[in-house]
């Protein structure tokens, strides 16, 4: 494991701290170890966790929200948000953190938005959950939020249902929902993976703008190495529940770790060589 060099290191507040995280699933008497001893620290930065499906990256992120606990066994020497021990928090205490201090945007707004509630009301609802404001005020805040994620006529869009908006707009609505309470950390779990490339860029730039504006930390989960290299500051590479390498985005292409190199080489690049793409050797070891 490489040391963590980065300009952001000096500013690290240590927003998130995890040491030796283990997540196990029990099904039919067999135990599956999905996350095996993951440790890292995150500050006010754009940190990416990259890996193939099944690498445990989503689970790691969600354990900070304590959403994994009901269906799996989560243990760690440390699992902290600021100085709050997540492992010890009660459900009630977690509800004060979720949605207001740590939030998460998921992959597909067609499924992650409630299909029978107007999108605007879903944004307003998020605000009212954590602040004592009236419906009218919440509505106004929601409009403002829709505006700030670059939705051009918020009055019209407010009244729409999720199936009536496109993917890109849906993700912007999700962002509005998850940013309206001004959280300290946003987790983006494959947030752009379901979008077209051009729309991806739009949403990413909005995300970038918001993160910078609010001085938040962003935990960006993805399988797309090229994407995170351009977008994030630091990258953690995971494989089968373990961290394989942690590297600054700028240094990604210089990595000598065989797995990381494998990932880099198997991703197609525009302007790259036209030979067959190498395939990752997934044999053990």
């Amino acid at each position, binding site marked *: 494991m490489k040391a963590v060099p980065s300009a952001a290191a000096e500013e690290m507040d240590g927003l998130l701290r995890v040491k030796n995280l283990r997540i196990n699933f029990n099904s039919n008497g067999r135990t599956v170890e999905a996350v095996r001893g993951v440790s890292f620290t995150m500050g006010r930065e754009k940190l990416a966790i990259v890996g193939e499906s099944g690498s445990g990256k989503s689970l790691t992120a969600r354990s900070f*929200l304590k*959403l994994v606990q009901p269906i799996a066994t989560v243990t760690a020497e440390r699992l902290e948000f600021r100085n709050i021990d997540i492992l010890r928090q009660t459900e009630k205490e*977690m*509800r*004060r*953190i*979720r*949605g*207001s201090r740590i*939030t*998460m945007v*998921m992959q*597909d707004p067609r*499924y*992650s*938005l*409630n*299909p*029978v*509630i107007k999108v605007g009301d879903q944004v307003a*609802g*998020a605000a009212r*959950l*954590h602040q004592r404001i009236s419906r009218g005020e919440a509505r106004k805040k929601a409009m403002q939020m829709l505006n700030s994620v670059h939705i051009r006529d918020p009055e*019209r*869009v407010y009244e*729409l*249902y999720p*199936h*009536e*908006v*496109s993917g*890109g*707009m849906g993700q912007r609505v*999700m962002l509005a*929902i*998850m940013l309206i309470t001004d959280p300290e950390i946003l987790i983006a779990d494959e947030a752009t993976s379901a979008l077209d490339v051009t*729309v991806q860029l739009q949403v990413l730039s909005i995300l970038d703008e918001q993160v910078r504006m609010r001085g938040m930390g962003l935990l960006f989960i993805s399988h797309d190495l090229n994407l995170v290299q351009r977008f994030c500051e630091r990258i953690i590479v995971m494989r089968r529940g373990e961290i394989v390498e942690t590297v600054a985005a700028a240094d990604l292409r210089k990595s000598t770790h065989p797995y990381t190199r494998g990932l880099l080489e198997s991703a197609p690049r525009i302007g790259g060589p036209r030979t067959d793409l190498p395939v990752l050797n997934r044999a053990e070891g």
Partner: protein
Amino acid sequence: MDAVFEKAYRAGEILISIFITYLGLLLVTFLIARVIPIDPVLVVVGDRATPDVYQAAAKRLGLDQPLWLQFLSYVGGILHGDLGQSFISSRAVLSDLKRYFPATAELATAAILIGSVLGIPMGMIAAAREGRWPDYLFRVLGLIGYSVPVFWLGLMALLVFYAELGWSAGPGRLDIGFDGQIERITGFLLVDSAAQGEWEIFRNALSHLVLPAAILGFFSLAYISRMTRSFMLDQLTQEYVITARVKGMPEWRIIWLEVFPNIRVQLITVVALAYGGLLEGAVLTESVFAWPGIGSYMTSSLLAADMNAVLGATILIGTIFVIINMLADLLYRLLDPRARRGLANT
């Protein structure tokens, strides 16, 4: 303009479909009537009539016409409300039905209220606590509701709650002393007595209504809670529920304010179907509780082989069924926001 035309076309399609089904319904009852081994002419003229009288009677009954013509006049008659005459009561079947229907409607409505007001929350709690004791308890209750014969349960309930414990009033809609004391406006005793301020009668009617409504309600409860649980479980695996948790919503809010709106529309269909099922259960329950409704009418006509009356009641119940299903379908299309068309642009 195209959209309007398309909607009209679809509505027309549905109406025609319902019409054809209804026609089929009438055809089935018509055929059943023709299946009777008893000669309907003989019923009218007696078996010692001369051939001339027989022919004349047959002609008057329209029985010399080809079958399909008979069917047409049958349908025509029904559309005019002519359901024939009951030979026990010597009244038009239609007026008999009008007399007896409100009692059944009152019973069925009370039962469906019990069934849904209790059944829906039960199903939701069972789903939210899946695998734990409330789930098992409610599922067992539902299973019992599906398996127990309604007439037997009614009888046992009368035995326990009326004869032994004296908690509930006995069979019938009112104590005999109150018979005919209030004017009949809607035929719903609760409504009529309340409207006329006769509170003693109201309470009495209520005490008679409770037990049969509870028994019938228990059935719809079994069905409604099972369907509710099933719908809820389907929804609880959806992503938007995770979003709600990420937002920090407490569990009860998620269930009632986020998930429930998603199953509301399906539940309407379920309740409508349950109501139809209640009409069936009413036939047997009314017999046990001496409830003077369509069910009792049907059973007494059955035993006397009064075919017109039986078929008339069958048509009525079938008609209600068709109407309820139609309404449920309509409500479903109207209320589901996903039925709204069109995709907004970015």
